[in-house]
């Protein structure tokens, strides 16, 4: 290269590939300062008028104000965010400690209840004990393990992913029909996605989600029912729930998988809330059935949906 241009070209410096870094590192000062000084020395610099001076002062004040505002704005939120975060952390820890404490209380009280019950029944209460055991299974208080039926309902895959069609999703009414069908077919205990169903459970929909006992669940919905798998399967197929499932599969493309399981483990709710209701006085209340709710032990149908049922295939 250099031979073609002769000696006119200055010798290539060994660090020519680092011009950018060199420029930044060796000449950090704005060259404008040197130029301005040279101009002033030569007497060719711009003349100072009162106007340009005032403009410069104003500009300087504006820049100082802006820089200060920027610095303040950058510093402020960090502190606020940090404080909020610390507050939230403290609250979380406090609530967690409270919850742990209360959980410990619950465990202790449950133990005490069991002990007192045992004491009360004594030796001769064997039949009562059996009844309690049976009732606590039906009411969903204790965990249940046993053979049973597993039904998996999966939302249908929409052809157009952008368009959400509620008809293609498993709805609360579908789960209600299935669960009621299972109860009717002789299920001893039923759980949806690990949520044990009791006589007080409501299956409802809120927006896109299906709520089981106020816990939002999403597809796939696994309905586990403990009981005689073979008889439940035949009973279910014979009942209207079977037709409903067939409609879901064929018309809406919702995945329905039924398998019999040799061992299902259903959690217990571990919580008994005793409700008491009285039949109101016949003279004061003309409609006696309005307030009469009996609590729940044993099988009963799952409480109904909050909204109108939209599916019309059954």
């Amino acid at each position: 290269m250099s031979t073609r241009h002769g000696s006119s070209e200055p010798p290539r410096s060994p660090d020519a590939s680092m011009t950018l870094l060199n420029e930044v590192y060796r000449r950090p000062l704005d060259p404008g300062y040197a130029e301005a000084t040279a101009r002033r020395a030569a007497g060719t610099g711009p003349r100072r008028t009162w106007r340009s001076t005032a403009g410069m002062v104003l500009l300087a004040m504006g820049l100082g104000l802006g820089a200060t505002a920027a610095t303040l704005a950058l510093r402020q939120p960090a502190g606020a965010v940090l404080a909020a975060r610390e507050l939230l952390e403290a609250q979380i820890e406090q609530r967690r400690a409270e919850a742990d404490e209360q959980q410990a209380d619950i465990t202790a009280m449950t133990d005490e209840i069991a002990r007192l019950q045992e004491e009360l029944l004594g030796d001769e209460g064997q039949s009562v004990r059996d009844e309690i055991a049976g009732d606590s299974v039906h009411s969903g208080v204790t965990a249940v393990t046993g053979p049973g039926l597993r039904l998996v309902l999966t939302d249908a895959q929409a052809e157009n992913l952008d368009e959400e069609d509620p008809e293609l999703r498993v709805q609360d009414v579908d789960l209600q029909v299935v669960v009621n069908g299972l109860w009717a077919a002789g299920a001893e205990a039923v759980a949806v996605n690990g949520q044990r169903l009791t006589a007080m459970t409501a299956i409802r929909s809120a927006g896109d989600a299906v709520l089981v006992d106020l816990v939002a669940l999403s597809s796939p919905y696994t309905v586990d029912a403990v009981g005689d798998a073979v008889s439940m399967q035949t009973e279910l197929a014979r009942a209207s729930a079977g037709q409903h499932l067939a409609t879901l599969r064929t018309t809406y493309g919702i995945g329905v998988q039924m398998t019999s399981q040799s061992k299902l483990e259903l959690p217990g709710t571990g919580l008994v809330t005793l409700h008491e209701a009285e039949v109101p006085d016949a003279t004061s209340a003309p409609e006696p059935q309005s307030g009469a709710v009996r609590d729940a032990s044993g099988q009963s149908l799952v409480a109904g949906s909050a909204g109108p049922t939209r599916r019309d295939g059954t």
Partner: protein
Amino acid sequence: MIAVIGLVIGVVGGLLLQPTVPVELQPYLPIAVVAALDALFGGLRAMLDGIFDDRVFLISFLSNVVVAALIVFLGDQLGVGTQLSTAVVVVLGIRIFSNAAAIRRHLFKA
């Protein structure tokens, strides 16, 4: 000198008035502050070198801030905002460092 006095007045006014910066400008503040720091260090060095000039200082200050914010804005629009911010911070950081070194040599002769 006038520029420095004006700047000090502006800083004091900012501290007293506590003006709020519009939310749209928030993403450009960090880079703008770094650019302002660079201009400040450059001005300080020029002062110690005896070649300080109000005009050059103010214009370099303003253009530094504006160009830095513009680069970040462009980077955001092109999807390389963080990378360009890093580049700007690296370049300005090197400059601040070497200017600070020159100031140190002036002040402590070491």
